[in-house]
């Protein structure tokens, strides 16, 4: 079955941002992202500058999907972490449930430290995913229940 949509409330968003900010400090990294496996960016913390975070999120998800496909071909469920080391900048990706934790770091940090710190926050992120899923099953009224055809048409004018 396809995953249910992610509905992120303001409080949860700020909680996630706090966890990412702490991870960024502890891992001495440049940018930390939380993205879903379909490439939707959920939250980001760090020195973004002119970094195209939307494209990075989509490509990271494609990367995890492709390596996950390879994993299954050789009899593994998935590869839970991926690392790409460049001359100056590197990326570490952890698969946490239906989300991806992406850490971009440079020579101020090390892969070992980033891996360790990412692993340490993964249980917190898992708990957050559970909470987000729980909220979705509540009876809260959707603000989109009252979208009219005119609202939709106005987007294309």
């Amino acid at each position, binding site marked *: *079955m*396809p*995953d*249910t*949509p*992610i*509905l*992120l*409330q*303001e409080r949860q*968003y*700020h909680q996630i941002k706090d966890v990412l900010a702490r991870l960024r400090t502890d891992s001495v990294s440049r940018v930390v992202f939380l993205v*879903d*496996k*379909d*490439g*939707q960016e*959920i939250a980001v913390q760090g020195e973004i500058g002119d970094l*195209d975070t*939307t*494209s990075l999120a*989509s*490509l990271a998800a*494609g990367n995890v*999907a*492709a390596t*996950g*496909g390879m994993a299954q071909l050789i009899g593994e469920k998935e590869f839970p972490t991926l690392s790409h080391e460049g001359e100056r900048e590197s990326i570490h990706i952890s698969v946490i449930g239906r989300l991806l934790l992406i850490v971009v770091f440079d020579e101020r940090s090390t892969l070992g430290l980033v891996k360790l710190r990412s692993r340490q926050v993964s249980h917190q992120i898992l708990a957050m995913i559970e909470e987000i899923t729980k909220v979705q099953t509540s009876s809260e009224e*959707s*603000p*989109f*229940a*009252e*979208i009219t055809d005119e*609202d*939709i*048409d*106005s*987007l*294309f004018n």
Partner: protein
Amino acid sequence: MTFINYASREINCKIVYYGPGLCGKTTNLQHIFEATAPQSRGKLISLATETDRTLFFDFMPLELGTVRGFKTRFHLYTVPGQVFYDASRKLILKGVDGVVFVADSQEERMDANIESLYNLEENLKAQGYDLMKIPYVLQLNKRDLPNVIPAADLSAELMRREEPVVEAIASTGAGVFDTLKAVAKQVLTELRKS
């Protein structure tokens, strides 16, 4: 899979352009990219071979405007059309909210259209979706070429339900935004239902 962020007041939806090799999926995205104001769209990312055939996917984020105070962003993807990239196509359909099937109207591509449409149905099923229920548009592309099948015949062969059918010439942009509008409308209507 729709992602709604109440904090940044954004709705993100994923639309996938599907179809046989060289039918014009990437050309659809290129036209949308060129015809949209830079502030409304992100980069067009193409993971292509050296001969410009799509290897994994093309991707482009597009912001359409605001509905009920929420920014609506559509993430547009294409799949690689060539038959042997099926594993990649399956992956790209994960989390899809709407599908555009781009058919090549040329007579000699009819079999390729049918095979690709069958492949779409199978791959959607593998991800837990049903082509009969998901927001879906059929685009009849390359209507400017001399050897095209009449639109009515092509539609009769390729339509699976009461889906909107749009005639297009993606290379000039004709029908490209009508197609996007038709699928985006269905995606947002689904949001209202859920």
